[in-house]
């Protein structure tokens, strides 16, 4: 496995399956009385978050602590960075204190990759700009796999703003690597330029027609649509988006019985997903949250446990 987790491209199929298998064992720990494993004792991991995120950050924090690592949270809003210190200086300063690794969330695409070139420590990308959010994709895959089994050959629809969604990008790559068939559904303005050649070379399909795709899939992942996109001219109104691309009550009925619904959250109930769909029996939304800690424990284990070994 590669030293850093910057992108889903860093993991091959074996790596992903190993992480998911380990996550199953980790899930057991969550149900024990003593939620602690000594595995990462003596390791220091810094959560360096330049964007607000209670959910992802606390998920990583719990994951690290249950593995007995020392976890430090640095919220860089209002820290030295706002005083003009560059990202490079911020990470190098923290790294100089002797930490073993960083979990980084930043608003600039590519930030995690650049940080991995500036410091010696292990770097885990917890979301970089519009680019990727690998652990989210892993926990989404974990939740789907728990319900549906092996994802190879399954048909998954990813619905939403591919241009601006790092979760969608990571899920796309993850599912392809696991051998699933992927269809991305969005209005044309929310598909990035070059999507045709991208889709052709990676082997996924695109569609503007959600109703045609939904009855055919084994899983549908709804992505959060930001209302700000309306002002960028990406779509005219929330109402129009919902009618065209929302998982409405009516669309819920067109799904096959076994089809699962995913949403990485936070949800805009009523915009991209109806309340009925979010709360339906087929919905994995809460499973996804519960899976987050186990999957992140697995990632931390695989990236940190052997760190510093003399190979």
């Amino acid at each position: 496995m590669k030293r850093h987790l910057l992108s889903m491209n860093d993991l091959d199929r074996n790596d992903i399956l190993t992480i998911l298998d380990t996550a199953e064992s980790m899930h057991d720990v969550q149900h024990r009385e003593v939620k602690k494993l000594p595995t990462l004792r003596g390791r220091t991991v810094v959560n360096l978050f330049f964007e607000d995120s209670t959910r992802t950050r606390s998920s990583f924090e719990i994951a690290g602590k249950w593995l007995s690592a020392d976890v430090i949270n640095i919220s860089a809003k209002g820290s030295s960075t706002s005083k003009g210190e560059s990202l490079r200086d911020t990470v190098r300063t923290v790294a100089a204190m002797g930490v073993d690794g960083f979990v980084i969330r930043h608003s600039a695409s590519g930030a995690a990759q650049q940080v991995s070139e500036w410091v010696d420590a292990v770097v885990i990308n917890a979301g970089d700009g519009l680019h990727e959010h690998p652990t989210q994709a892993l926990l989404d895959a974990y939740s789907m796999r728990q319900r549906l089994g092996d994802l190879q050959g399954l048909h998954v629809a990813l619905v939403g703003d591919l241009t601006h969604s790092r979760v969608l990008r990571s899920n796309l790559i993850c599912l392809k690597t696991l051998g699933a068939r992927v269809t991305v559904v969005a209005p044309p303005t929310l598909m990035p330029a070059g999507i045709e050649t991208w889709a052709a070379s990676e082997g996924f399909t695109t569609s503007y027609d959600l109703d045609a795709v939904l009855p055919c899939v084994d899983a549908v992942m709804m992505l959060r649509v930001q209302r700000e996109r309306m002002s960028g001219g990406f779509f005219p109104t929330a109402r129009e988006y919902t009618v065209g691309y929302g998982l409405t009550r009516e669309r819920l009925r067109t799904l096959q019985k076994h089809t699962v619904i995913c949403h990485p959250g936070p949800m805009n109930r009523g915009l991209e997903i109806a309340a009925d769909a979010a709360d339906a029996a087929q919905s994995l939304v809460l499973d996804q949250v519960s899976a987050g800690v186990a999957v992140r424990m697995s990632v931390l284990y695989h990236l940190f446990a052997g760190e510093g070994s003399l190979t």
Partner: protein
Amino acid sequence: MTRPESAPPSDSPPADLPEGDQSVRVVMSSGDVSRALRRVAHEILERNKGSQDLLVLGIPTRGVALAQRLVHVMAEVEGRDVPSGALDITMHRDDLRRNPIRAIEHTYIPAPGIDDKTVVLVDDVLFSGRTVRAAMDAISDLGRPRAIRLAVLVDRGHRDLPIRADYVGKNLPTSRSERVQVCLAEHDGLDEVRISGGDR
């Protein structure tokens, strides 16, 4: 989520005799192995005065198959099933930094858990004792057994820690440089214990 343990996939290479290596000696034949296991099973029952509150946990990989064989014998003798399971100790190892990351094997503890049970840990070879140390740490994370006993097929000496086995299939004095290989039918197609290598 835990599952009942059938023979897990072997993570060791298939047991071939190294070609042309005259220093390989077979120290336990198939018959020796089954007789030793039978005796150990009886010893466990004798000391425990029956199978009451026993829980036999095998340490993956080959400890699990050995645990299954032991409870099979015990069930024959006692006329009732003895609970068994598997205890993966990867997360409690003290040598993770030195070795490539291992995938975790499965831990299966049958209901109602280990509290107040006499846990019998089962492994194929007892060497430095670190695996058993990790197993005891793992057990203490799972609950509070009444007692922990250790059964091994082979004790080859050279302890790094103050750990000893309660039940031993065979005591095997070795030098540190020698290699002990335990083959079991469930994984390797036959039952055999071999020693190879060492300084001449």
